[in-house]
């Protein structure tokens, strides 16, 4: 045992020494994502997107004449580890800016470290309102919190003539937050809100919740969860003969995976999403979208991953733009520069607006939100 430990330690040291000098010629960007544990699939998608961005930037000569180097670490879908990873990236790898950490509780765990070491982080996925409202000026978020999504949806609801809606949401910050913010918005619109049912992360059988919802007088169900549970819900709703309009939110639906896995059960479902890989021409930045998608396919990843991975792509481009703007790879300068950048993201311009308590605001960008509809296995823009 002890011998193995010695060996491991030695190798660790060697690796550290080797990677040490290399840092001088490159600019490092830390990536803090879940590659194992409950969120492994999504974290991996995001990292793959990030790699595409890094390679693209380096192909064009990097930033400030140096190549950028992604230091990718696994936070094991665990807040303790997310904080530990932040420590490593900042102290051992000396990354002046980071991207992370997918889940909200993971990001929240990293935030005290950002304060401690005054290092900025681009938040690519987390949706909890707390992240941008708890007064952490090192946070720059490109993903829409559910409140932003609700506001975007507000302009569409009239055209869908909703009377009464039920909710079926994953029992975490994302699901609960969505139910809260959307209910508020619906009430303002004079739309009745019925049941709010939850399902645990990783639960496989939602028949009980669906049977309950089937019995209500609401004509629409808002569903918020990751793609795997969405697929199951569509199948199980169909099995229960539930004939209600289903609208999903959150932007990580991977409609293609739904079509592939839920088949006919997915027909007639609508999805609020933040990226349109199916209609590059309709996106705010078509040629970037086309490049991203072609790269994605070239690397043999399944197309379904696009709706998750594009955030990694945008996140890294945002960080790189900030470094470029700052003119030097130093945390303070990069943080300052974040406020002045304007990146043509795959789902709209990335421009940070102040959010949170006076004097220590976090940055929040306002991405576009689209409503798409699945009909006989085809994905189409909802004509409004």
């Amino acid at each position, binding site marked *: *045992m002890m011998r*193995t*430990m010695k060996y*491991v*330690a030695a*190798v*660790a040291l060697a*690796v*550290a020494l080797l*990677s040490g000098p290399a840092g001088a010629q490159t600019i490092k960007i830390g990536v803090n994502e879940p*590659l*194992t544990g409950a969120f492994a699939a999504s974290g991996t998608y995001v990292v793959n997107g990030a790699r595409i961005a890094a390679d693209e930037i380096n192909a064009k000569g990097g930033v400030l004449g140096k190549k950028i180097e992604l230091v990718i*670490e*696994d936070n*094991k879908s*665990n*807040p*303790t*580890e997310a*904080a*530990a990873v932040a*420590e*490593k990236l900042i*102290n*051992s790898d000396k990354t002046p800016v980071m991207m992370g950490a997918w889940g*909200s*509780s993971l990001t*929240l*765990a990293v*935030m*005290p470290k950002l304060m*401690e070491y005054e290092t900025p982080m681009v938040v690519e996925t987390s949706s*909890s309102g*707390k992240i941008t409202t*708890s007064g952490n000026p090192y946070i720059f978020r490109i993903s829409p919190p559910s409140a932003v999504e609700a506001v975007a949806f507000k302009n569409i609801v009239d055209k869908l003539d909703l009377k009464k809606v039920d909710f079926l949401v994953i*029992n*975490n*910050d994302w*699901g*609960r*937050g969505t139910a809260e913010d959307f209910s508020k918005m619906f009430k303002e619109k004079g739309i009745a809100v019925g049941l709010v049912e*939850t399902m*645990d992360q990783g639960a496989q059988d939602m028949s009980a919740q669906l049977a309950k919802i089937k019995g209500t007088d609401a004509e629409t169900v808002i569903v918020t969860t990751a793609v795997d549970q969405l697929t199951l819900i569509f199948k199980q709703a169909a099995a229960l003969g539930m004939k209600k309009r289903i609208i999903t939110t959150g932007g990580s639906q991977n409609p293609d995976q739904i079509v592939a896995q839920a088949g006919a059960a997915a027909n007639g479902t609508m999805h609020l999403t933040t990226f349109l890989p199916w209609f590059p021409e309709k996106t705010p930045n078509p040629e970037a979208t086309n490049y991203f998608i072609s790269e994605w396919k070239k690397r043999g990843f399944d197309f379904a991953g696009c709706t998750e991975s594009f955030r990694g792509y945008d996140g890294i481009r945002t960080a790189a733009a900030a470094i470029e703007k700052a003119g030097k790879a130093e945390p303070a300068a990069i943080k300052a520069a974040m406020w002045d950048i304007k990146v043509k993201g795959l789902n709209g311009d990335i421009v940070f607006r102040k959010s949170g308590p006076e004097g220590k605001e976090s940055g929040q960008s306002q991405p576009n939100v689209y409503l798409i509809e699945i009909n006989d296995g085809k994905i189409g823009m909802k004509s409004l």
Partner: protein
Amino acid sequence: MRSGVAILTVAAFASVPLWLRDPYLLNALITTGIFIIAAMSLNLLLGFTGQLSLGHVAFFGIGAYTSALTSLGFDVPLPGGLHVVHDPWPPIAGFALAVVIAGLCGYFVGRLSFRVRGAYFVIVTISFAEVVRLVALNWVELTQGPLALNNIPSIALPLPGFGELVLRTKLQNYYLVLAVAVTAYALISRLVNSHFGRAMRGLMENEALAISVGIDVTRTLTLAAVISAAIAGAAGSLYAHYIRIIDPEVFAFINTVTMVIMVISGGKGSLAGPVVGGLIFGLMPVFLRPIMTPEAQWIAYGGVLIVILFVLPRGIVPSLMQRFAKGRKEVRAVGPVAFSKSSAEEHA
């Protein structure tokens, strides 16, 4: 001689921040230390009463939530428009309450679950932890459920006359964790080397015989459960104030597994076991990180665990103790009193 070893060990740990400059490793040591404290408390049950609790993280988490809520404050609506409002208290009070509340839970759980033993006890403790997790997840008004409790303040030590010292830096937290760990260790070692500890061992080895010499089963086991839970609660409080955010995942089964691994690999029933096992399995991920893909790290983690159990089935410390003890046989023949010291070492 034993106290000499103890002092040297503590001194060694205390000196770490002086030569270890990397905050990342220091951070790893702090979190590892917190889990070692929890593992020590588990060892009191598993190693000295033979009761394997796989729900031990429940007390850890209850301590974390108690401490966090005490120092953050809360406002819980009750039926009938009533509200339970609690204004923030200093974190140190949270720490104290965490110990007390966790201990109380230990009392009730002990009272109920010691009616069953063996595999049944294992399952009932797992179930208890899961129920607590689901309550933390769904009682949103109190715990904010999955929305997590964030901005938990760091622990502050009141210094009479000088106001208070807020433990923000890693250095401070390292010594805080070390202090709590040493206290817990001393407490447990005193306990197991007292007649309480002998009663526990007696029950573990031959319950009927133990009873026949006047040992009260329920009282002894419940006492162990209370102290064990209280220490776990203290660890949880340290966790909450160091990581500064907690969500119901703090009750995750993997956290219990981590503690059990630390105890059994290090050697259950040996005071030093959880410390040794804890250092190995707490720091292993740090060493594995740079040399393996994430999945491989987990596979190695599981593999190392299995190997230890095959090579040193009784755990690292007892197995080494045994070898070392052989060379001590002669010394022992001196007599009872002389032996009583070395007997204490056996369990130290």
